[in-house]
């Protein structure tokens, strides 16, 4: 029998991995991947709590929203990355300095 804790542990692992990816990688696509991982960790948390604690569909609906938002976010983010690449010919995050100064 899977307990709530195991879901939370998986979710935690996903979150931490995503965070580490976000922080340590300089590739924008990788950062977007990290964000996806964090969002998924959060969605997993919602579903797990919904299943084990509140026992209704709120968490499910929330996770659906998260998935939709993640998809939209990925679309927008990738579009920005493509434009960024067209201008700078790189997707290194430290090259994004136009707003500086």
């Amino acid at each position, binding site marked *: 029998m899977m307990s709530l804790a195991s879901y939370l542990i998986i979710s935690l692992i996903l979150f931490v991995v995503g965070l580490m990816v976000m922080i340590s990688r*300089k590739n924008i696509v990788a*950062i977007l991947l990290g964000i996806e991982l964090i969002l998924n960790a959060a969605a997993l948390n919602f579903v797990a709590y919904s299943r084990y604690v509140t026992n209704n569909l709120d968490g499910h609906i929330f996770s659906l929203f998260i998935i939709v938002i993640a998809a939209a976010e990925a679309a927008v983010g990738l579009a920005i990355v493509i434009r960024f690449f067209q201008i700078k010919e790189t997707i290194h995050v*430290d090259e*994004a300095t136009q707003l500086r100064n």
Partner: protein
Amino acid sequence: MEYTVGSIAPIFLSPVIAFVINAFFGRKLPRQGDWLATLSIFVSFIFSARIFGDFVFGQFATDYYIHKVFTWFDLSYGTQIYKIDMGIYIDNMAAIMLVMVSGVATLIHLFSTWYMDHDEKHGRFFVFLPLFTSAMLGLVLSDNLFSLFIFWEIMGFCSYSLIGIYNKKEKAGDASLKAFMTTRVGDVFLLLGIVALWTTLGSVNYVDIYAAIAEGKFLGQTVLGISFATFTALCIFLGAMGKSAQFPLQVWLPDAMMGPTPGSALIHAATMVTAGVWVSLRMYPLMVLGDITWFIAVIGAITAFGAATIAVVQTDIKAVLAYSTLSQLGYMIMGVGVGSYNAAFMHVITHAMFKACLFLSAGSIIHSVHEQEMPKLGGLRKFLPYTHFAMMCCTLAIAGIPFFSGFVSKDRILGDALYYGFMAGQNPLLAIVPILGFAGAGLTAFYMFRMMFMTFYGENRTHHDDHGHGHGHHDAKGHEAHGHDIHHEHLDVRQNVPLLILSVFTLGFWFCGTLTGQSFGKVFGAKTEWFKVLVEAPRVERFVNHPRQEFSKVDTKEAAHLEHAHYHHQTGYAGPNPDEHKLHSAHTIGAIASIIIAFAGVFLAFLMYIKGSVKPWASKFPGLTKVLQNKYYFDDFYIEVLIKKGLLGLNRGLAWFDMGIYDRFAVDGWAAVNRVLFKSAKWFDNVVVDAIGVDGTGVAVNLFNLVLRIVQSGKIQFYFIMLIMVLASYIWTVNI
């Protein structure tokens, strides 16, 4: 007859219109608009004559008056009333005065068109002449002291302009300034009196003042320790003294002859100087209430006598006339003072007629001969027959010869003065009033005939000197040169007709209705003594609760019974006089005495200047002659003592105050205060606003910036770390 504003206003407005047109377009008009000025005054005369004929010859109540008012401005608050009404007030006296002023002014204008012909100041003269006349007409029409004061000041300005019209002559400029400044002394007091009346009564309407006197509103009020009535009466009389050139303020009038002679005629006869007598007559109840009639009588007597003595030694023909004006004004004022209201006003009218004629005659002489020093004239009656005739009539009138107007009016004043001085139970010192009056009458006869004899009789002296102008110098109208330097006079409409018309009115019966001025020899029958019937001191009781008539109201005069006015010789009010027989005997004695005195004066002049059997006394009394020639040193006294010692010192003191105190401490001190304020303001601005406020904001922002710059590195992963740390710390805090 009906009286609307439209039938009264043209009296005043038509000369004003002529003034405006002449002032702005006079140069473009033919003859510089002198015909327009003359015509405008004639229009005034027509309208005045209508009122005059109705008031004087209609069978109407003696106390009928037209009074129309509108409120000019109203400063009332609470229960106090402070308002200025403007309006028209015409009673019998005003009707007579209007026709006199406009009639005499018409003739003077007509004469001026001849006199000022080809003069460089022709146009300018005919700008001020109608304004002057209109101001006098407005003064006579006005129903309150305030509008009277306005016209009074317009006349002051006009006399200033007319006296100084030859502005390239320094003496003319000085004389005009002198006239203006001397009358100003009186005007200040007049204004003070008006303001005092206004603040106490709330109105300066004649009608309201009369009503206030009747209601006793003056009683119990004091100003500066003297009774309010005395104070205001004295102030108003001092104003009248300035305008009518009475004793201490007489210095300006003789100098006023610096202007053209017709201008002098207007000033001396019809307009300026009679204004003072006019206001004294209008405010007569106030003078009586204020108990200053004795003062008025004494001032008048001093002026009448003093001016006559000066006139005796003058050699300039206009100066003699100027001093005779002063003297006659003294009689008028004396008449006001001794309570002969009616005769004083009659003297205003008769004097205006003969003095205008005298001045115009003098103008005729001066214009024909170009000489006004009498020792250089003489024998002119052959050359100037019409002028001679007119001037002789007027001289007879002013000298007080029976059958002439001056006898009628002056004799009545003198008779009343005699009664006032000796029989009315007054202070015995007041006997000086009739004594000076009779002495002045004798001197008047003497000096006027001296002038006549020196000018028109004897040998012609004009050719002896080189001073006279060249042969045919002023031959404008094609007069033939005759004799020496003089053109023989032909009858000229503009030169002689005004003189002849005026000389007709030097006859006495026009004014009193009898040939002699006494009760026998009636000419007009039932209309006899119309003057005495119609002119009386205002009976103040009538004015209590008078209805206020709107300006647009049409007055309709209704026939009423003609009643005789009686005089109370102390108050001037109607009523039986207990001293009737005494008064009658005073008048009889006065008449006989003045006839004797007048003939004595004429005879003495005859002996001295025609027969030559009596040497002129100038050589016998050199000291006195010198005093008189210097006009009792009044001019010197005013200039040397009052102005140089008093006024200049005061001015210097004021200048010191102005420069030393006011300028140094107030102005400069204020500058110093401002400088300190400015410095502190500058410090505040620099330090507080600029350094702390403006720069401080910048510095603070800069400091924040230093911190924020570390945080806002632009490294996105650093932001993530920060974000996570903040979230973590948040959770951490919440959990604890």
